[in-house]
């Protein structure tokens, strides 16, 4: 299935935006206005709901005219593009992910998609999933640099990487028995540590890094 790459799913949704001359401001501008103020941090709808690696929302006003001799043409609707790179369910499906969005971020989803044609609301989960699938386009080719790790696995790995770097730095020249005991303590500490929060800020460490980078 081209939408799937390993454990990752390439979700592409185009939702037609309501075209209503009487709406002021127009529905596409209302979406843009809402998105402009929407957090991309820990209270983002995609952080509140599980399973999103990267996602974007884009208002597509029209197709592009590349110049003559190509034909100039225009869309009759504007579209809200929802592009998500997310964890697929065990059966490779997207239903669990969409259900999670509806469960954890219904308010945001409704605020955004209520400007789209035929949106049923997130409260009716089955109707919401049917609507999203009706707007879904099959991804023709999907590339994922890492396709065998979930979001929690990746956050855990970043946490481990950081802890291991600190451990190695602070345990140079330590006696073998003590080193082993300290390592087992590190293992226990990491097991007990909560999973890092999605899209959270990283506390910077006092490490000298490079200068200008182009």
């Amino acid at each position: 299935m081209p939408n799937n790459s390993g454990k990752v799913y390439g979700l592409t949704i185009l939702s037609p935006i309501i075209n209503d001359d009487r709406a002021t401001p127009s529905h596409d501008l209302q979406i843009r206005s809402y998105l402009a103020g929407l957090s991309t941090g820990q209270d983002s709808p995609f952080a509140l709901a599980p399973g999103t690696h990267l996602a974007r929302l884009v208002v597509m006003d029209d197709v592009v005219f590349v110049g003559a001799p190509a034909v100039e043409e225009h869309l009759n609707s504007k579209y809200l593009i929802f592009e998500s790179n997310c964890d697929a369910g065990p059966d490779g499906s997207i239903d669990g992910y969409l259900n999670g969005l509806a469960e954890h971020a219904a308010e945001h989803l409704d605020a955004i998609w209520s400007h789209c044609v035929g949106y049923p609301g997130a409260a009716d989960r089955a109707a919401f999933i049917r609507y999203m699938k009706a707007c879904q386009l099959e991804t023709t080719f999907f590339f994922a640099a890492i396709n065998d790790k979930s979001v929690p696995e990746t956050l855990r790995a970043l946490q481990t990487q950081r802890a291991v770097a600190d451990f190695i730095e602070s345990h140079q020249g330590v006696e073998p028995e003590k080193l082993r005991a300290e390592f087992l303590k590190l293992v226990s500490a990491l097991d007990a540590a909560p999973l890092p929060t999605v899209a959270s800020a990283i506390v910077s460490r006092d490490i000298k890094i490079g200068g200008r980078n182009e």
Partner: protein
Amino acid sequence: MSNINGKVYAMNAITPMKPWKTWILRLIFFVLGHVKSLQQDLINLSFIEFARWVVVPRGGFPQLGNGQEPEKLTYDYLLFFSNFNGTWNQYIDAFSAVLFKGLDLIWKWSEKFPGSVPVTIFKEYIGRVQFDTDYYFTAYPHATANDLKAAHSVQASFDDLRSRAANLSGPEFADAYLNFVLQVQPYLGETGEAPVVF
């Protein structure tokens, strides 16, 4: 509106194609998807976290009724979405320098595609067909694709050592730990704020 979040850039592009040409492109993508060795340059570049191409047939835009006017289009459209690390110029330069054959194979079916070399004309074309992202989320804004690969390598080595540590004597552990450090030392780079681009 922002195409950038932390260390990732969201690119969107749309190009028109004559409908008969999209079948050739679909075939190319089919082969690309099934012959993994053809993706090697894309993998080796290692600054793309996720990318996708979506062919939208001229009659394939979602039609939901409820007063939505059907689309009447001449062309099929190729949508391209990329999530990459670095700047726009670095990305296009690298694409043009390394992946020019692959890029030409994919986009030569789009109207007025000038070829990916020379890069200046290619950049003009991308600039014309690109549109901006309104909202961009990433679960790990401070990590690049290479950071993620490195972290997973460290995790794998760490899991291996931890599974053996309890059963090793002090000296045996010291040897295993030394090997562990040798394994992970290339992968301990610091993640953090994206560098400021001048």
